[in-house]
Every structure is written in C-alpha cells, then in structure tokens.
C-alpha cells in the first residue's frame, strides 16, 4: 500500500490516543473488581480493550480516506438513464421469472421467509410514499397493515369474502382509513404529526384488542387460506371444494399454499414497484414531493394541498392494507400482537435506511432487515445489536440512506 509517511505516523498517534481514551473510559469499569468491602485491581481486561481499540483505529486509519468521508449531499445528480425501455422491461421480466421459479426449489421454510420479505417490501413501498415522497412522518403505519389483515379475516367471517375479493376491498378500506387519519392532521407537521399518527396506530391496535365480540380480541381470529379459481390447497377438500393437486394430478405437498401465496404476492409486488416508480414521474408524485419541499409555495401555484396530502396518505395506506391481506393469508391467523408499534418502527427503519424516496433502497433494506435475522438464527441473541450497529453505520456514512433517490432527468423535446 503506498501511503505517505506523515499519514502513517499521524494514524499511529491517533490510534495511541484512542487507546488511551479507551483505557481511561473503561479502566475503572473493568479493571477494578469489588471484593467484599475492598476491591482488587485487574489490569488485563482494560489493557485488552485498549489494544483492541488501538488495532481497530489503526486499521480504520489505513483505509482510503474517501471510504470514510460522509457522502456529499447532492451526490446523486440527475443524469440520463442508461437503459432503454425495452431493456428495462426485459430485465424486469427476467428477474421476475427467476424469482418465481424459486417456488419450485425453495423449501416451505424459505418460502415463508420470502413471503415475509415481500410483505415488508410492500410495507416499505407504502410508507415510502407517505414519508419519502410527501415528507409526512407517519409512525402509525402498522394501523393500515392491521386494517388490511383484519379486513380479510373479518370480511371472510362476516361477509364471506374470499381472498381475491379481499385484495382490492381491503386495500380500499385501508386507503379510506388513511384519509380518515389525514383529515385531523392536515395542519400538522414534523413531531406533532408523528405523535398523532403514533396514537392512531395504537388506537387501531387497542380497538382490535378490546372489541372482543367483533374481532375476537387478544385471541385473534382465523384467516382463511386462499384458493385459486376455487381450488383449494389442502390435502383433503372441505365440503364442496376441489383440492388443487387433484385437479392437476400432482402429489400433495404442504408447501403448495406458500408457493401459491408467494407467486401472487410476487406479482403484486412487481405491479406495486412499477406503479410507485411511475408515480414519481407523474403529476401527483411531483405534487407530493413539492408538498414535502414547501407547502406554501404549492398553494401559491394552485395545488390543492389538502387533496395532495390526503392522496398520499390514502395511497400509502392502501399499499399497507394490501400487505396486511397477504400477511393474514400466509399466517392463517391474525391477532393484535402482530401490529405493535415495533412493526411501525421497523418499516420506518426500512424506509430511512434504504433511502427516503428511493424505491431500490427500500427494497434492499426490506430484504436486508427480513432476511438477515433468518440468516443469523444462530446469533439470535445479537440480532438487535447487529441491527442497531448497521443503523448507526449507515447514519454516519450515508445519512440519507443506502441508496439515494435519483431525480428524473429531462431533456428538451426534439423537433
């Protein structure tokens, strides 16, 4: 490594300094051991810690400086896209087919992990509209997720709705709830908005928990397994039903239901990704972003800020509701425990870590945050620690998220 002498010596000095600081900070804590009313000194522990700090600091000093510097704010200057439309379509199709063929090889366990990851992608994309595009800090997003999930379960119980009818209806219901939440918070921003939305999410959970006659309360409620053109994914058909594997002459396997849900969910996610990407370049998407930047300027340009805000809430909420339907269908059961504030925080973390407003970033962060815990099963005690560590690192080096939203590039119309 060719490294200038002054920098090497400077790194050494700084490392030594860090070690001394570590010694001072951790020395009394780890070096003094209480013994009755007395204490004895133990020098090895603080020295080990100091040595560790010294080495880490030294290695960090050897890394190229550009790796460590925080990224510039306007790093992602707009540029013309490098891909033609047909290339994008082809690429998207290939990825879709590759992911869809996972159904044939993945085990039931990994399929359910995949379903969870896709559900969080949906949630992330939904919240991204509200927080990333429209800049409305929403801490109660899990409420809409719950509305979708319970909409499916209760819709089946009381109205006999099936899976396919529940998808659009639950999305619309959640969108309606989004608007209902939107009205009282029209004049709120920032912290105040966050608190009210937080309360809204909790209200929904508490209602589900306490309205026992209607929702089953803490005991939860069964959600039916989806069917495909009336064919059921069961070993033996219920009354009047036809099992899927018999129609197609297949052997029954318990992973079929998960495979089916995975495929439908994958298709829905693909459509939502397309929709959200298009939305950004559409008048409504631009209006959301303009609202985030300056509400007063929006009004001076004749934009109806009320409608714009409500539409962002509704659109985000309906995607959250969609995720809820799939959650209920894949679990076969919903209870209020699944919709705690922690879920909202997790989805918000997905959006913020991925990069506010960036669709790719949200997808990557959702995959990371759902697949990582599964991959790290053995270290499950340290999962939250690793999670926190990753957050801190990203906030230091990429304060605006892993992937920065790239602005659309415009060229003058030809001719």
């Amino acid at each position, binding site marked *: 490594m060719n490294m200038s002498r002054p920098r090497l010596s400077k790194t050494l000095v700084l490392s030594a300094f860090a070690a001394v600081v570590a010694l001072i900070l951790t020395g009394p804590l780890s070096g003094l051991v209480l013994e009755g009313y007395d204490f004895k000194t133990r020098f090895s522990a603080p020295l080990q810690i100091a040595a560790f700090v010294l080495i880490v600091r030294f290695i960090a000093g050897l890394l190229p400086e550009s790796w460590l510097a925080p990224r510039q704010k306007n790093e992602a200057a707009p540029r013309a896209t490098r891909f033609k439309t047909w290339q994008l379509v082809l690429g998207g199709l290939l990825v879709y087919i590759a992911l869809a063929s996972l159904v044939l090889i993945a085990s039931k366990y990994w399929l359910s992990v995949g379903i969870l990851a896709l559900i969080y992608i949906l949630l992330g994309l939904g919240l991204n509209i509200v927080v990333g595009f429209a800049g409305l800090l929403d801490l109660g997003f899990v409420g809409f997720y719950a509305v979708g999930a319970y909409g499916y379960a209760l819709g089946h119980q009381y109205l006999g709705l099936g899976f396919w009818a529940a998808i659009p209806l639950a999305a619309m219901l959640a969108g309606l709830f989004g608007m209902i939440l939107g009205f009282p918070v029209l004049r709120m921003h920032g912290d105040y908005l966050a608190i009210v939305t937080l309360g809204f999410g909790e209200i929904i959970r508490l209602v589900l928990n306490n309205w026992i006659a209607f929702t089953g309360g803490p005991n939860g409620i069964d959600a039916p397994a989806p069917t495909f053109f009336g064919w059921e994914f069961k070993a033996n058909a219920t009354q009047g039903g036809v099992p899927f594997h018999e129609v197609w002459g297949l052997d029954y396997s318990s992973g079929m239901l998960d495979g089916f849900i995975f495929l439908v969910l994958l298709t829905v996610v693909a459509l939502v990704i397309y929709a959200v990407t298009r939305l950004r370049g559409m008048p409504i998407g631009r209006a959301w972003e303009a609202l985030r930047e300056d509400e007063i300027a929006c*009004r001076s340009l004749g934009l109806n800020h009320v409608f714009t805000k409500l539409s962002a809430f509704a659109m985000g909420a309906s995607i959250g509701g969609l995720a809820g339907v799939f959650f209920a269908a894949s679990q076969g059961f919903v209870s209020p425990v699944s919709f705690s504030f922690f879920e909202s925080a997790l989805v918000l973390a997905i959006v913020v870590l991925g990069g506010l407003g960036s669709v790719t970033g949200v997808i990557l962060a959702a995959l990371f945050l759902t697949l990582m815990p599964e991959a790290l099963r053995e270290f499950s005690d340290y999962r939250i620690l690793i999670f926190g560590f990753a957050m801190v690192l990203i906030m230091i080096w990429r304060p605006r998220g892993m992937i920065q939203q790239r602005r659309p590039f415009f060229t003058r119309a030809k001719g």
Partner: protein
Amino acid sequence: MSTLLDLNSVSLQFGGIIALNRVSLSVEEGSITAIIGPNGAGKTTLFNCITGFYRAQDGQILLSTKHKPLDLVQLLGGKFRLFDAPWSNIKKVFYGFFGGTHLVARAGIARTFQNIRLFSEMTVVENLLVAQHRHLNRNVLAGFLNLPGYRKAEAKALECAFFWLDIIGLSDLANQPAAALSYGNQRRLEIARAMCTEPRLICLDEPAAGLNPNETDQLSLLVKRLRDEFKVTVLVIEHDMSLVMSISDHIVVLNYGEVIAKGSPKEVQANPKVLAAYLGSDED
C-alpha cells in the same frame, strides 16, 4: 384600459398591530404597478391578502373576470353563521376545510416570495413542471398506462418549461437541483415558475433584493417583457427606487398600513408625504 384588481378599504389587524388600514387601490390591466413604503409598512401583508394567504378582516378584493367580479376574500371561506343561506354556509365550511389559497391562484393570481420559496431539492425543470400541475393530465390510470393523452400533456408541459428556461437563461442548468442555483438565478426561476401557472396577475415581492446591478438591469427587462410580450399585469413590491421609477406605470405608497400616496412615478416623487415617510421628517 380596464381595472383588473380592485381593493376596497381592505383592513387587517394582528392583535394590536394594524397591518392594513382601509387600503383602497386599483390595478389597471396590462400595467406595472409598484407598491413601495418603508420596512414594516404592510406591503407583504397586502400581498398575502391579495394572494389568499391571509384573509382580510374587512373590505373587498375584486378580481375582474368575464362575468361579474370575483371577491377573493370570499374564496377563503368565512365564519359559519347559522342564519345565512344554507348553500353559502356549506360553501364556507368547504372552503374553510380545503383552504382557498389555491383557488385564488387558480383564479389567475401568481406570486413570488420575499424569502425565496423554491422546491429546493427538486430540479429546475421539475419546479416548472409542478407549477403546471393544473394543466396536466392528472388521471392516475392514464399515467400508469402511459396513454397518449398523458404523454402529450407531459410533453407540452416540458416544452413550456424549457420555453421559460430559455427566457430566463437557465436551460443549461435545467437538471440541477434548485438549491444549487445562485441567488439571482433562484429569483428568476421563481418568477418563471409563477408564470408557468398562466396567471393574469403576477405579484413580485422584492424581486431585486440581493441582486447585483447587472442582475437588476436584467430583471427590469424581464419584468417589462412580462407585461409587453406575455400580457400579464404586474404588481411589484420593491425598495430599489431607480428600478421602481424606471419600470412602473403606477405607484402606490404605503406607510403604517395606510395608502399615503398613489400616482405616476413623477407625481409620487414630488409628493411631500412620501418624502416625509421615507426621510422620517415630521411634516406637521
């Protein structure tokens, strides 16, 4: 020439401060009218009333239309009164809920702000596209499917955006974030953005503040062009007296929320009250 905007004894108080005290003035269609006055005279407050950000507590602000004049104050909704006609009450509640400011903008009044308010993280073109929101195809389905009607509307908006970028000389910076522009460019972009809403009246709040003499000259050309070429009426607040005297057809002088003089630049310059207000000498 006909009157475009007519203010009829407009008043507004903030607590004890009388920001506007029975201000009456009229703006001729196709003119450049300047509003001047010392700091804190109420000029920006007057703009906020005209553009619907504040609701005048008293008086009328009439915008002439093809039919009967439109009272902009009424657009902002009003106090719910039980014994009013039900329809007018429903309208008031509706406007109260949905905020009428954007309706004033839609009636054809655009504005810029004393402290620039651009969409700073969006690009220069996007700023101009947002301003054309109303003229675009906002059908979400048409957008998802990229239907021809949608594409045509987008292309037209883009053309209009570049048209204005050429006029203010920012075509090369079209894809830069608005925050990256120099101060003078930001001011001009804000004017272009207001023009993209296709207004009949444009209100400029201190457009020359912070500009160097060269940029100020360019600005005065631009403002004259708005009137002569694009046929919009201009209402401008400005402290730069040489600019005001050179561009305006008509000047209104405010002091402590009251109109103390109005007339042509010559008349205003000769008015002793104006001199007193500016130089602070006591006339009585």
